[in-house]
């Protein structure tokens, strides 16, 4: 079977499971959770095979239908794509294992089959989005992921989710239309839809048609920034993260946002690189916007009363870090940016999963209600504290490594103002995370003893939390393996 590549099988297996799920739902199938764990486990194994294959064989291309790249669609299996595919598959696998008992009960019973249909479609479109090398194929996958994300938010119907989902739908549809317009302009200029070929053509054409190619770059920037929630286009993010059920929030925060940032890197480094970095100063503007995002995200997070909103604004700040690293375009900056994509995905997912346990099991939504939560659920709050400290950037956890590398990047690019911004925002991060940790362990009812919750939560909820926490510690203590791998990616992107 020569035509089979494990990466293509990832998308196909997910699509097949997404289309089988409604049929299973009609025949009153009950064990969707186990089905989801099985399918995502297979996909995770396939993505591990992909990354091992890329490590040994190098970059590979897969031409759909046997057509050559100038006429047909191709998938590219490079180092960046394999790494991001591993991240997406791993995170979905972990979240599906976490989806047990009371957490599963947040979604009403008759909708569970449809929930997993949407989640499989979302994972298929995100995997395809990362792997594709064709611009229009990328647009189609962006649209599929946008629609399924909105459906995942609004699966429970109440006032908040309905409002958040209509807001998100309008804003993301505007973003997609902008991206499509930009793709049309790129097709008009170069005649190719393939990213590599269009990039090569644009290197000469950007000088001949500066207005058209700059307009293409602007529309693409607007669309992708709207979807990645770069400040000031982050408006949909707090409402969407706050009102969605716990698993949907974990999926959105950890995975969906990161896939769009990977698309940003691919398009702006391969296709529009001349316009972005040399011809206009949009790269500098992005750096300024990222700096504002870092400060204002943390400032908005300090004044929040509900915990999920606070975590959402913290996400806005962290996305600012990632864009700062990407737009600086130095070696350390880009390395730090890509490393922070991985780190932030792991840390934010762990934060939302632990907070989800506390919200569902105790009903505490406001930050004030977290007083004494450390006594009732000490293990969960220990993991929350670990991930919060990693987010602030305390060594030897992984958040420190990526922030340090981005800081090195700002010095390389001779913008020391952003070093000051990074240090200042780390202090601001501490302002809103540390009180929760201290209050949860030392506040509340003083006489209550520590009530370890392993029996109450069960093995299947504890296991994903431990896995993510172990990853945080491992990447923090042994950063050389991921950083060496990412250096290879950066070398191929920048040269």
């Amino acid at each position, binding site marked *: 079977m020569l035509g089979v590549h494990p990466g293509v099988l990832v998308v196909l297996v997910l699509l097949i499971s997404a289309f089988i799920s409604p049929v299973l739902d009609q025949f009153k199938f009950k064990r969707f959770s186990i089905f989801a764990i099985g399918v995502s486990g297979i996909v995770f194994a396939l993505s591990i095979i992909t990354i091992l294959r890329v490590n040994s064989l190098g970059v590979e291309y897969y031409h759909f239908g046997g057509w050559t790249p100038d006429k047909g669609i191709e998938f590219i299996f490079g180092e960046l794509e394999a790494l991001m595919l591993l991240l997406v598959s791993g995170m979905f696998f972990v979240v599906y294992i976490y989806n047990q008992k009371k957490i599963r009960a947040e979604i009403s019973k008759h909708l569970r089959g449809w929930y997993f249909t949407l989640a499989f479609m979302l994972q298929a479109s995100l995997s395809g989005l990362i792997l594709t090398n064709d611009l229009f194929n990328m647009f*189609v996958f962006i649209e599929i992921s946008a*629609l399924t994300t*909105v459906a995942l938010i609004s699966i429970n119907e109440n006032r908040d989710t*309905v*409002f958040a989902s209509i807001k998100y739908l*309008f804003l993301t*549809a*505007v973003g997609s239309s902008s991206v499509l*317009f930009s793709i049309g302009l790129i097709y008009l200029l170069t005649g190719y839809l393939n990213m590599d070929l269009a990039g090569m053509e644009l290197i000469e054409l950007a000088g001949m048609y500066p207005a058209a190619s700059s307009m293409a770059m602007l529309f693409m920037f607007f669309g992708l920034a709207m979807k990645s929630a770069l400040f000031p286009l982050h408006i949909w993010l707090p409402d969407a993260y706050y009102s969605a059920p716990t698993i949907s929030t974990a999926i959105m925060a950890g995975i969906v946002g990161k896939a769009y940032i990977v698309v940003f890197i691919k398009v702006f480094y391969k296709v529009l690189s001349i316009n972005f970095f040399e011809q206009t100063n949009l790269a500098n503007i992005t750096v300024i916007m990222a700096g504002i995002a870092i400060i204002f995200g943390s400032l908005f997070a300090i004044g929040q009363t509900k915990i999920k909103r606070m975590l959402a604004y913290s996400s806005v700040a962290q996305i600012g870090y990632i864009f700062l690293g990407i737009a600086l375009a130095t070696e350390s900056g880009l390395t730090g940016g890509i490393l922070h994509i991985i780190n932030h995905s792991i840390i934010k997912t762990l934060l939302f999963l632990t907070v989800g346990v506390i919200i569902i099991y105790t009903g505490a939504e406001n930050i004030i209600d977290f007083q004494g939560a450390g006594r009732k659920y000490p293990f969960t709050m220990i993991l929350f504290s670990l991930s919060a400290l990693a987010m602030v950037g305390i060594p030897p956890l992984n958040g420190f490594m990526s922030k340090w590398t981005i800081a090195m990047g700002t010095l390389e690019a001779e913008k020391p103002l952003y070093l000051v911004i990074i240090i200042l925002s780390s202090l601001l991060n501490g302002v809103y995370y540390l009180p929760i940790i201290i209050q949860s362990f030392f506040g509340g009812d003083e006489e209550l003893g520590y009530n370890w919750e392993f029996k109450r939560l069960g093995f299947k909820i504890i296991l994903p939390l431990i896995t993510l926490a172990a990853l945080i510690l491992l990447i923090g203590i042994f950063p050389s393996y991921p950083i060496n791998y990412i250096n290879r990616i950066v070398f191929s992107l920048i040269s």
Partner: protein
Amino acid sequence: MIDIVVHPNIYYFASIVLFLIGFYILLTHPNLIKKVIGLNVMDSAIFFFFVAVGFVSDGGSPIVEAGSEALTVNPVPSGLMLTGIVVSVSVTAFALAIIIKVYQHYGTINVEEIYVVRSEREC
């Protein structure tokens, strides 16, 4: 016969004007259904743009016999827009379904009144 000379790029200008009109409708009208209409106008402008990209003046229709060398219009962008139209229809259908739910929960589909209802609930 008066021969009016039209700029060769008129289709692109028209599509950008339509895009901006659609965007303006989406931004300013407070009624949610009018926002959906604005979104549709924006998408129609993009479809028009793509089809105009494929247009070759003096070209015939792209139905060819084997081995003929006639100049034809490029059919690839029109084919891409079939997918685009389906995506736009899906987004419209989904937005209208959510708007029905918004009406059931808030009693109004005017964005400003929805904000008033939400801020009253917070107090």
